[in-house]
C-alpha cells in the first residue's frame, strides 16, 4: 500500500533521474538545458502533488465546495516555473554566444588550451591600458 500511496512520487523520481542524466551526460548545451527543464518540472510535480487532497478541488472559492486543495504549493511552483524559464532564457543566450565564439556547442569539442594568452578577438579590450591614462 505504501508503494501505491506514493505513486505520484515514483513518477517524479523517474522524471528527475531522466532530466538529471541529460544535464550531466549530454554533450550538447541545448540538450543540457532541456534536461534541466525536465529536472525542474519533476520537482514542480512533486510540490503540486503534495498540495493535492483527494476529493478536493481547485482553490478558488465557490458555492457548495468545502474541501480545497492546498494553494500554497501552487504559489511556490508558479514562482519556480518563472525561475525555470528565466534560467532557460539566460542559458540559451549563453549557448548562442558560445556557438559564435567557438563554432560549436558540443562540450567535447570545446577545448581551450588552458594557458594560452587570452583570446584577442573578443569584443572586449584586447590589451592593457598601458601608459595612456598615466
Amino acid at each position: 500500500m505504501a508503494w501505491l500511496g506514493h505513486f505520484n512520487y515514483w513518477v517524479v523520481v523517474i522524471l528527475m533521474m531522466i532530466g538529471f542524466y541529460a544535464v550531466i551526460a549530454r554533450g550538447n548545451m541545448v540538450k543540457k538545458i532541456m534536461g534541466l527543464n525536465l529536472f525542474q518540472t519533476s520537482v514542480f510535480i512533486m510540490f503540486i502533488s503534495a498540495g493535492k487532497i483527494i476529493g478536493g478541488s481547485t482553490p478558488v472559492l465557490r458555492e457548495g465546495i468545502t474541501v480545497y486543495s492546498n494553494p500554497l504549493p501552487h504559489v511556490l511552483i508558479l514562482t519556480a516555473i518563472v525561475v525555470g524559464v528565466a534560467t532557460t532564457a539566460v542559458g540559451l543566450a549563453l549557448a548562442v554566444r558560445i556557438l559564435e565564439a567557438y563554432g560549436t556547442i558540443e562540450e567535447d569539442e570545446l577545448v581551450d588550451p588552458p594557458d594560452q594568452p587570452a583570446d584577442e578577438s573578443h569584443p572586449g579590450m584586447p590589451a592593457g591600458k598601458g601608459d595612456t591614462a598615466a
Partner: protein
Amino acid sequence: MNIGEWLPFSVLVPLIAAPVCALMPGRTGPWLLAFLGALTSLLIVAIALPVLWQGELSYPFGNWPPPIGIEYRIDAANGLVALLVAAVATFVLPWARIINNFEVPERQGIFYALFLLAFAGLMGITLTGDAFNVFVFLEISSLSTYALIAHGWDRRALLASFRYLIMGTVGATFVLIGIGFLYMMTGTLNMADLAERLPEVRDTTAVRAALAFIIVGLGLKLALFPLHLWLPNAYAYAPNFITVFLAATATKVALYVMLRFIFTIFGHDYSFFALPLTAVLLALAIAGMFAGSWVAMFQHNLKRMLAYSSVAQVGYMVLGIALATSAGLAAGLLHLFNHALMKGALFMALGTVFWRVGSVRIDDLSGIGREMPWTMTAFALAGLSLIGVPLTAGFVSKWYLIIAAMEAGQPWLVALIVITSLMAIYYIWRVVEAAWFTPAREARTPVSEAPLSLLVPLYVVVAANFWFGIDTRLSVGGAEAAARALLGGSP
C-alpha cells in the same frame, strides 16, 4: 523610528535601484546609483548591528504575521554576513569605476543593474526568514551573476558562465527539493516555525534526505570540494570587478545559508547526529584545502590561482563548522569574514595590474613590482594576510581555527592547517618573486603605477586586513555573537 522597520530596505533599495539603473544612459549615472544603493544598504545594516548583537529582529512583509506571510528575521549571524556583503560592495565600487570603464565599456546601465540585482539577491538570501524566499533570491543573484560573468572579455568567460549556470541551477533545484521535503513533512516554510515543528518528525527518512539535498545543493553554490568545479574558471574569466565581488561575498552567503539550515532549522544536535556530517564535512574540507592549495601552486593565470586558493579557504571555513562546537563555528564565521577581506584585496590588486598590463599571467608580470610598486605591495600585504602572518586578519582566523581544533580534541588538524598555510606561502611568494626579483620580459611594454583613484580604495581594503588583525573586537565579537545566534538556546 525603530531600526527594525528599516532593515529590509538594505535589500529593497538596491533591488529598486536596479531597474532604474538599467534605464539610465551613460556611465556615471549607473555607477553613482549603484554606489548609493550599496552605501544605503551598508549604512542601514551598520546602524542596526549593535541592536542585532542584543537579539533578533523580525519584519513581516505585508504585515502578515509569520508563518502566514514572509518575514525577514535578522540576528547577529545574518547581520554580520549582510554587513560584510554591503561593505564589500560599497568599498569595491569606487575602485571598480575605472576598471569597468575599461573592461565593460558599453551598456553599463545594464551591467550595474545586474550587479545591483546580484547584490540585492545576496542581501535577500542573507536576511530572509523564509525557506522558499531563500530560493527566489538565490535565483535572482545567480541569474545576474551568470550574466555578469559572461561580460568577461575572454571568450572562456562564456563557457565558465554556462557551466556555472548548469551547476548552479542543479544546486538550486536540489535546495528546492530539500525545501519541498521539509514542507511536506511540516507544512510550513518559515524558518523559525520549521525549527519548532521539525523535532516532531525528525526521525524520518524524508527529513534526513532533505538535509542531504540542501547540503549538497548549497555545497555546489559555496564551492565545497568536490563541487567546486565551476568556480576557478568563473572567477578567472569574469570581469575583475565581478571577481572581486563574488570572491568576497557569494560563497560566503551560500555558506551562511548552509549554517542557517544546519544549526537553526535542523538544530546542530540533529544535523550532526542524523548524518555523519562531521566526518563528511571534515573530509571534504581537508580534501578541498589540499587540492585547492596544491592546484593553486601550479597555476600560471593568477586569477585562477587565487580562485583555487578560494576553494582551499572554503575548506578552512567548513573545517571550523564541521567541528560542531561553538568555538569551531565562531572560527569558521570569523574566517568567512576575514577571507572576504583578503581575497577582496588580492583580486583588487590583480585587477589593477590587469588594467595596466592586460594580462594576469605570471610570465607577463615579471618585474611588475618595480613598475607598479604600490599595487604589488598591496598584493604582497594581502598575501601575508592570506598566509596568516601575525598582525593580519588571516592570522586571527587561523589562530581561532587552530584553537578550536585543539579544543575539539583534534590536534592533528593543526598540522593540516599549518601545511596548507605553507602551501599558501609558496604560491603567494611565487608572485612576489616574479614581481620584484625577475627581470621584465622584453616583449611587454613597461607600464606605470596606477592612479590614486584605484590605489586608495585598494589600500582601504588592505588596511582593513591589518585593522582586523590588530583590533579584533568587531570581527571576533561579531563571529562569536553570530555563533551564539546560530546555536540558539542550545548550549
